[in-house]
């Protein structure tokens, strides 16, 4: 079975952001694997081990330095990597199409994992578009994944392609910490949420082994761009301006005994915030 994991190279959430040209960020900062994608890669590798015969392929759309992130995913256990090169900041619609084209070119997917959202763009939608493109069921914010191996779906032989109709049980996180439990058959697209598993960080030998595995770098197909012509009315999104969010608070200290402080806070709640 081919287990695909879509990963993204994103700025470290602790990095200082500087805006350039009014619509870009200064990119000489630390970039790394999107935190939610760590759960996706870890689950993909765990699933591969369960199946016994499968391969995990990390796919990413990004600039050349995204290679670092694809290698991180490989150090976490992905067997191969595919990097689709694009210098532009692409929206979810384009990204989903590009990832779909790359996955289709590689072979029939048995399952596709992604992270539930990226911390830079927070679009929260690429996995749904992938699912729609492939006509696979999609679930996001997945916190539990239980394949039903007893169905005997792991077949002998090189192709191991008898994965269609492998049943899986998936739990997603809902309001107030609730759960929705679904029964699905593969192939499907799953967006990994926090708590799906505990990612274990690669050791130095893992990193070295990953360097030797195949990572294919290909320019993203420009045909994908043309097929989204606005003549079809489908449209898209584009960042036209970016500004730093300035914290404009002027802190005032509340001094005094606990009782005095409490009285002042109550005053703020009543007179300023009007919540009491």
């Amino acid at each position, binding site marked *: 079975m081919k287990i695909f994991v879509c990963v993204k190279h994103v700025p470290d*959430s*602790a990095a200082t*952001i500087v*805006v350039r040209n009014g619509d870009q*960020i200064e990119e000489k900062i630390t970039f790394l694997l999107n*935190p*939610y994608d760590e759960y996706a890669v870890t689950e993909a590798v765990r699933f591969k081990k369960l199946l016994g015969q499968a391969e995990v392929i990390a796919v990413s759309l990004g600039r050349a330095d995204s290679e670092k992130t694809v290698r991180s995913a490989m150090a976490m256990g992905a067997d191969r990597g595919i990097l689709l090169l694009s210098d532009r900041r692409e929206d979810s*619609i384009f990204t989903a199409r590009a990832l779909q084209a790359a996955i289709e070119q590689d072979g029939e997917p048995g399952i596709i994992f992604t992270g539930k959202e990226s*911390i*830079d763009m*927070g*679009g*929260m*939608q690429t996995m*749904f*578009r992938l*699912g*729609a493109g492939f006509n696979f069921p999609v*679930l*996001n914010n997945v916190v539990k994944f239980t394949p039903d191996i007893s169905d005997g779906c792991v077949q002998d032989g090189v192709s191991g392609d008898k994965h269609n109709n492998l049943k899986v049980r998936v739990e997603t996180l*809902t*309001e*107030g*910490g*609730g*759960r*929705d*439990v*679904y*029964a*699905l058959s593969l192939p*499907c697209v799953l967006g990994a949420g926090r708590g799906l598993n505990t990612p274990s960080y690669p050791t130095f030998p893992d990193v070295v082994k990953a360097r030797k595995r195949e990572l294919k770098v290909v320019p993203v197909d420009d045909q994908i761009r043309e097929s989204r012509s*606005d003549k079809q*009315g*489908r*449209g*898209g*999104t*584009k*960042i036209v301006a*970016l500004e*730093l*969010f300035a*914290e404009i*608070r002027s*802190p005032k*200290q*509340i001094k005094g005994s*606990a*009782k005095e*402080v*409490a009285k002042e*806070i*109550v005053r703020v*709640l009543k007179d*300023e*915030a*009007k*919540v*009491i």
Partner: protein
Amino acid sequence: MSRKTGVIIEIRDGVVKDANYGVVACAGKGGTELHAFVIRTGDGKTESEQLRRELEKHGIQKVIEISLDAGKIDSLNMLDWSDALVQALTAYEISTLFGLTDPVGRELLPRVAAALDAPLVMDCIDVSSDHDLARTFLYSGKTIATIKVTGDIRLFGIRPNVIEPSPEEYKVVATEPSPANRAAVVESFVAKKSQHDNISLVETRAGDGSGNDLLAADLIISGGRAMRNGENFKLLRDCAEAVAALGAAATAVGASRVAVDLGWVPYRMQVGQTGEKVSPKVYIACGISGSVQHFAGMKMSGVVIAVNENINAAIMSNCDYFVVADLFEIVPALTEELKRK
């Protein structure tokens, strides 16, 4: 020819979510024809006429109650709702759909957008009256982006509680409703239930956190590392309850990532980059240092009050009021003072 705009109105257990009205205010800015698509989850009835009047006050012209042809819609199945919504949007020729960026919106909006292959911007803090520009946070909450949206159909998920609702003075409606009276009309839309052979909802488990809705809260009191353990969060709960008891605000208790990672409180209470992004009127941070990731989750709060023994904690210079003291003295004192009111 005016654009027709749809707004998802969420009714949970018979109650309309307050945050919906802010979305309506945003959607109606350009004077488009506003359609409310009612999504009912849970149990409980809402009186149809009462709903119609309330929505009408906020500028809705049509209220569309969605149901499925194959008997009762499974009120909790988001797959059924999104399929039904796609059919309804097409039938009513909706060009822009608005919803909340909350658990329901995070399921419905991207599914609908993907089915229609239409652009979607989530977590917006504002949208232009022409529905062609949206403002949202990008890069871990550190920047605000203006995003241009093109296409015949557009979708927007609004961050809860950042836009003020704008109800009009309720006017007495004449017996002959006319456009001048802006009387809202209620219609039914029966969608065809789609076949999903490869996926089914098997079970729904309610969380035990449903009484602690961070997204709906007007006041959130959160604890961090200095809380020392999970039991101590009771102090914050008592304080939140004391505020709620005064009847003017919905309250909730939150936590920083540290408190969750240490196993003191469940993940659903986490506020921050990888937790919930909240915008209450008041955010009280107790024993929280104020990491970049925590700020990403609460920077849209109205008044921020920080209680911390360390004057150099980052949050102390990024709040509205700070108290250099032990939260174990301040919080109980605050609860007591509130109970006195």
